[in-house]
Every structure is written in C-alpha cells, then in structure tokens.
C-alpha cells in the first residue's frame, strides 16, 4: 500500500540522517579545545603520569580522529554507545536510567497542556475580544514568559511551603520510596506492583513540575488553536453552514474545529518531542532525575560518549515524531493522501 511504502522509505532515509548526525556531532565535540582527561581524571591523579597514560589508552584518546570515529560507529551499529567518561557506565545504561523520569514528566506536561490549552484556545476564538479571550491571552503570556526557575520556585513556595497542599521536590515521598522497578515510570510501576501509596505520592509529585514544564506548550497550543480557529470561522463554508441554518454548536464542532485542528498536529508532534527531551530548569528545581540534566552535564564536562548518545537519542526521537506527524496528516487529511 501507498502509506506503508511511504513509511518504509522514510525509515530507510533515517539511516543516512543518523550517520550525518554522528559525523556532525563528532566533529563539533572534538574541535572544542578541551582535554577530556581533565574530566576523566581527578585533580590529584593528573599528577601521576602512569594514570594519565593508562586513561589515554583506555579511552582510545591516543588514536587518530577518523579511527576513533569508525570505532564509535562500529560499536553503535551493535547498539553500544560507549562508556561515559564521567559516570564510567555504559551510556545506554545511563540513558535507560534517566529517560523514564523524563518520559513520565513529559507525558504529564503534554496531557496538562492539551487538556487546558485546546479548550482555552477554542473558547478564546469563539469569544474573541471577550473576557475569556483576554484571560487566555494573559495566561498564555505568563506561561511563555515566566522562566521555570522562577515560576517553579514560586509555586513550590506557595503550594508546598506555605499552603502545604502539594509535595516538595523529587519523584516520590522519601519515606514512601519508589515502587519496585519494572519500567522506571513510577505511576506505571506502582500500579503494576499494586503499591497505592507510591502511586498517589508519585502522582502528586508530578503535578507541579508538569504544570511548570507544560505551561509553555499550553500557551503555544492555546494561541495557535485560537488563531487557526478564527481563521477557519471566516471561511466561506462556515458561512454556508450557518446559512443552512445549522446550530452554532454543530458549525463549530463539525465544520470549523476539525479543520482548525489540522495544523495543531504538527505543533503537538514537535511540542511532544520537545517535552520528551527533558527540561534542565524544571528538572533542577524539582530534583527530577531526567535526561535533560544528564545531557547538560555531558556537554559541560565534554563527556564525548554521553554527549553523542543523548544527542542521538533526542535526534531519533524528533525524527520519529516528524514521521508520525506526517503519517497522521495523511490519515486526517485526504487531500494529502491523494497528492
């Protein structure tokens, strides 16, 4: 079928893209004038020439750059992203450790952004110029302009410290402890283990960071839904629908909304990928052990393997989201399918 061959072609196209990304990454990281040994070894072991020599050999830093690159690529094909300079763990293992926290927070923020962003945008469009429109604009503006390190601290101060209605930082109450490890997604794991205290604790710990992280996406969605819906509402076929004497609700829901939401698929795809790649500020404020901090530390420390690994994972995530968005487009909009 047409769609399937399209997907297969897109998937195959990813291979040269991934190779391209690894080359770009490799070149960029290696031209930075930093000696990675400064990261691998501590201040005191830098004094010992034997340690320096051993580390240089162990981490392959004595080989030429093309040689280092081909070794990396060869291992990558076998699913081995190398050993992190800093944590001394396989990068794959580190990513598996940190990714679940990010995924859980990303999904929660995404749900928050959609559940609130879409209705807010729709009502703002329908009542353009009225109170709800102004409210939605201000709310979106706040979300887009408040830095998370400020809004996060403020929310913690208010809801955790002053009012005591929501828990403090972390993924779960320290005295309750995380559920038995299965996937690393605490909500899922706690349900799997039937550990209800851990479930409720994890859920309540998700609220604040999800709001802070999702707020920006919410703002984006509300604004784009609004403008897209307003545009659609001015189309001829809407006037025709109204002229036919359809109820306003039918006009909006059946005729306008469906068309207005098509551009949202693109936005949502990219926003979802964005939320999945971690958010350094939110993770820092809420002591959230996600991939964002890991990636930033990897780049600050010039931890080549970790840096390459996280960037690759993020790049592949974006590629997949783009593919899904394109496929969804074809499914939703017959014109694209036929084109």
């Amino acid at each position, binding site marked *: 079928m047409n769609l399937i061959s399209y997907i297969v072609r897109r998937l195959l196209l990813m291979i040269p893209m991934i190779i391209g990304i690894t080359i770009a990454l490799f070149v960029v990281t290696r031209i930075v004038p930093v*000696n990675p040994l400064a990261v691998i070894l501590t201040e005191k072991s830098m004094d010992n020439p034997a340690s320096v020599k051993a580390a240089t050999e162990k981490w392959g830093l004595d080989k030429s750059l093309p040689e280092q690159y081909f070794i990396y690529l060869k291992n990558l094909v076998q699913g081995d992203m190398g050993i992190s300079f800093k944590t*001394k763990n396989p990068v794959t293992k580190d990513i598996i450790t940190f990714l679940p926290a990010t995924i859980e927070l990303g999904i929660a923020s995404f749900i928050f952004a959609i559940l609130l962003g879409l209705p807010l945008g729709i009502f703002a469009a329908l009542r353009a110029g009225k109170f709800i429109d102004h409210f939605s604009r201000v709310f979106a503006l706040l979300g887009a302009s408040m830095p998370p390190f400020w809004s996060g601290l403020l929310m913690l101060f208010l809801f955790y410290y002053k009012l005591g209605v929501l828990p403090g930082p972390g993924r779960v109450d320290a005295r309750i402890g995380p559920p038995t490890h299965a996937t690393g997604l605490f909500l899922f794991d706690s349900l799997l283990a039937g550990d209800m205290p851990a479930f409720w604790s994890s859920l309540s710990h998700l609220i604040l960071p999800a709001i802070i992280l999702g707020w920006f996406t919410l703002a984006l969605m509300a604004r784009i839904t609004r403008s897209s819906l307003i545009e659609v509402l001015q189309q001829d076929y809407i006037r025709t629908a109204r002229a036919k004497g359809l109820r306003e609700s039918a006009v909006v829901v059946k005729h306008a909304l469906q068309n207005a939401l098509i551009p949202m698929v693109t936005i949502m795809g990219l926003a979802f990928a964005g939320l999945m790649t971690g958010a350094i500020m939110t993770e820092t404020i809420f002591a959230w052990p996600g991939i964002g901090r890991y990636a930033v530390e990897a780049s600050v420390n010039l931890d080549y393997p970790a840096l390459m690994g996280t960037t690759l994972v993020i790049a592949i995530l974006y590629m997949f989201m783009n593919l899904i968005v394109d496929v969804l487009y074809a499914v939703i909009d017959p014109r694209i399918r036929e084109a």
Partner: protein
Amino acid sequence: MKVPRTLLYLLLVVCFAMSVVGCQPPAAETPAAPEAPAATQAPAAEQPAQPAPTEEPKPVTAEDLPVLVMAMRLDDVVTLDPGYAGETTNLTIHINTYDTLVDFRPDDLTNMVGRLAESWENNADFTEFTFKLKPGLTFASGNPITAEDVAFSWNRMINIAGAPAWNLDGVTAVEAVDELTVKVTCAEPNPAFLSIAANPSLGIMDSKLVKEHGGTDAKDAATTDTAKEWLDQNSAGSGPFTLVRWSPKSEIELVANMTYFKGAPKFGKVIIKHVEDPTTQLQMLQTGDADLIGQLDSDLMEVAQADSNLVITTDQTLDMNYLAMTSNCKTEISPESSALLCDKRIRQAVAYGIDYDGLIQSVMNGYGVRAPSIIPLGILGVDPAKTWGRDVEKSKALLAEAGHADGITLDYYYASNATREIVAAKVKNDLAEVGITLNLNPMEQSVYLSEMRAQKLPMAQGGWTPDYLDPTMWTDYFALGDRSVAFRMWYKNEKATELAMTVRTNMDRAAREKAIVELQDILIDDMPYTMLWQGVGIHAHRNTLTGYKFHPVWLVDFWELAPVE
C-alpha cells in the same frame, strides 16, 4: 462524529509514543529483592499478619527504628564503588557504609584513633606500615574481617587505577602477614600514609562478597573487575549502614547494620535525597520532610534562625578558595600578564590590594575566615595571628617599586559560576583602587580545568577541599614544584620544596611544625597564591535530632545521630 475521531488520533499519538519509549528493555540490573544482609526489609504486604507471639522479646530490627531523611546535593556522585569514586559526596556515603582502619573523630581532628585497627606501627623511615586488626569483627554480610580483606581492598584500588587510586600512589605492596596483620610497603618514605588510611575511600571491603560479584584485585583489575555495577547499588563493608539503593541524581538509601561492632545505629534507614536549590532544602527541613540538610546557604540564615524547630551550627571547614598567580614569565595564554606576574612584587601587590574582609562580608555574609597562607587554619603550625589583610599603600608601593607606578593590566581566569562571578567582580573592583586593571575571563569548567592543568593560565581562581587530615594535603600540592597546583602555576622554590619534603618525610611533630611555620613565611613572601577565604560551614537540622557533629572530610556520621526521646 468526526471530531472525536480527530481526538482519537491525537490520543493514538500519545499512546504510540508511550509504548515506543515505555517499552525500553527493563534495566538489566533490575534489583531482584535486595539481599540486604542485615535487615530483611520485606514489605508488610508480603508478610502474612503474624499472630502475636510474645513469649520472647522480639529482637529490634531495622524496621522498628525511625527513618532519617537528609536533603543535600548529590549530583556529584557518579559511582559508589570505592575503587572508582573520587568526588566529595561519596565520602559521606562511604564513611557510613565502610570502616577504615584508622579514624579522626569529629571531636578531635588531630589525634588518630583505631577503627578496624587495634594498633599500628611503622619502621623508622616510614616505608613500612603494619596494622593489627581488632579480633572478632565481621562485615554486615557476616563474613569475618581479615587482613586478606584489607589487602584485597587496597590492591583492587591500586590495580583498577580509578579516580581514588592516588591515595595509594607509591604503595608497592599490601600483604596479609597473618589473619589479623597487614603490612603496607611504600617505595619512598610516606609518613602521611597513616592519615591517608583514614580517608573513607580506603574503607575495607568484604573480599568474599565483592569477588562473588565479579570483583578482583589482580594486576589487570582495570579491565577484568566487573563488580562496579553491583557496588553502585550495594555496599560490601562493615559500617553502621548498608547501601541498598542508589538512584542517580535522586536518592540514596541506607539500611542499618544491626550487628555493627560499635552498636546498632539509632535509625533503621537513612534516605539521602538530592535537592539542588538551597531554599528548597531549607523548606523541606522546616516542613519536616527532611531531618537535616547538607549545608545551609548563608543568605538563608535569618529565615532559619527564626524557626524554633531548627538547630543551626556553624563549623569551620578546611575548604579553601584561593587566587593563584603564575611564576612563569611566559605562559601560553596571556604572556603579557605572566611577564608582569613572574615578578614577586607584582604578585604581592595583587595580594595586598584585595579587600578580604569586605569579600567575606559581602559574598559569604561573614561566614568565612582567613589563614596567613594557603595552609588553612586548624592545621599544625598555622597561627591565626599571622594573618594579614589589605594594605593599599603597601600594594601601591610594591607596584611602584616594580616600575609600574602608573598601573598595570592583568588577565584573570576562572570557571564561571554564581559565586565566582561575584568574587571576581569584587577582586576587580578592589584592585582597580590600587591601579591594577583586571580583565575578567570566565570560562566553562572543563575548559578552565584543561587550561589550568596544562599550566597555561597566568592567574586563576580555584578551590581546595581535603581528602585526609594531614598537613601534606596542602604542603605537597602547593609547595612541591612538581605537584598539582604548584606545578600548574609554575611555582618552584628550592627552600619551599625542602621544607615541604621535611613535612612529608619527618614524622616528628615539632620538626614538622617548625617546617610548616617556615614554609608559610616563604609562601607569604613569594605569594604564588593568596587565600581568599576559608569556608565556615553552616549546618542545620531539626531539633528532633541529636548527636550531630560536623566533620571536615566526610560531613556526618549517621551512626552518631539519634532521635530525641
């Protein structure tokens, strides 16, 4: 019904993404029911309700004891395997899970006491050390502690050649003489070795247990030892607590070792939670979510003092912040600056131009002290009375004497962070008043370390924290020309090297003290470094906790803590 279908697709996107990413193969090391040796921590659900037995009094288990929660920064922890860990926070975890042979207790940092060792002796030239272990001690696993375990632990550290291996630099052999006697041989006289042996990194591991999990102390341990993955999540020591879980950048969980040889701890479990923001740490303490925190920010002192539920202590640390100036007249970066700085009068002019009191007041809110040289207060031979301060006239005179009465310009380098930015700005302001223009060059941490370690910088701002309590921790690294900071700043003075060697090789307390006093004078005259401030740590805990004692190397020993009755 077309709209719901659209929404359905959206939901599908979410679900699909969830299933794609959610189905990562479960981490290989999925902790199968932690084999915590001392405490079986079966969740209540698994245990059928026991019919109250009651004839014999039930022995106290770890679950019967309260839980202690500590909030602090844990993000420097990259491994908890003593063979690999070389950061700071791991020292706190290691002192609580492993026992060292000897120890400096918080209440007396100058006298060494035995921990696992009953006695120790050395030969006349400090190349051989013999430790005699206390008899009858066991690890948390129940295995006896023998000399073989000591040899295994230290040989493993040497052969893995990981971050902490420098502790044992120069050690040529660690051998078990008999079951309870271990002999350490060093290539060169090494009187500091006894102090080094108190470093929590050198805690003794249960060789049997570590070997079961792939550990080895063989020559090729760097490539053949596979115990790290297990040791990251478990401990193999005899300490008051046992590590049962480490979630990186999140939490560390310790369970009481009820058979600890000094007596069972008063807390059944310790959870150390990573919280980066100091304000949030304090909030957790105030709400009772945490019982103690790692360090209190001096900005938050007023808030903390106003809370009657908190106990605040200030403790002098040995953490130093220094400004270093090169003695090389032609450094690779900014040779013009180094051409000036290699004249010691210029270095002195810089040092006397800085307003240290103002710096400590404005940056540290007064929580800082200063020592006369780079060797901190609290160390043998360091006399606080000799501490000098700003002297603008002297500074200007020194500049004029060096032929630069109309002022000079210098390049100043540091790894950028919030504190260092403020310090650099303050130093720049102060020096402007004596006619020295400072160009501030903030760098990314990794770039700074690379350049500094490659001896390229003319002026640098750094910090130093001790790993063991012996004057060599400072005299070696700041006065021996081929070591660490002295090497990187090209500082080499024959007399200083000779005195540092005396401190290094002479164990006679009076001789060492004399050498340190003399060395200190030379350092003040040569001025390769000036101490900006020595930290005063502010620590806080809830008043429901007693026994808190700060230690400058390993922070806190949880075994000393107890709930208030």
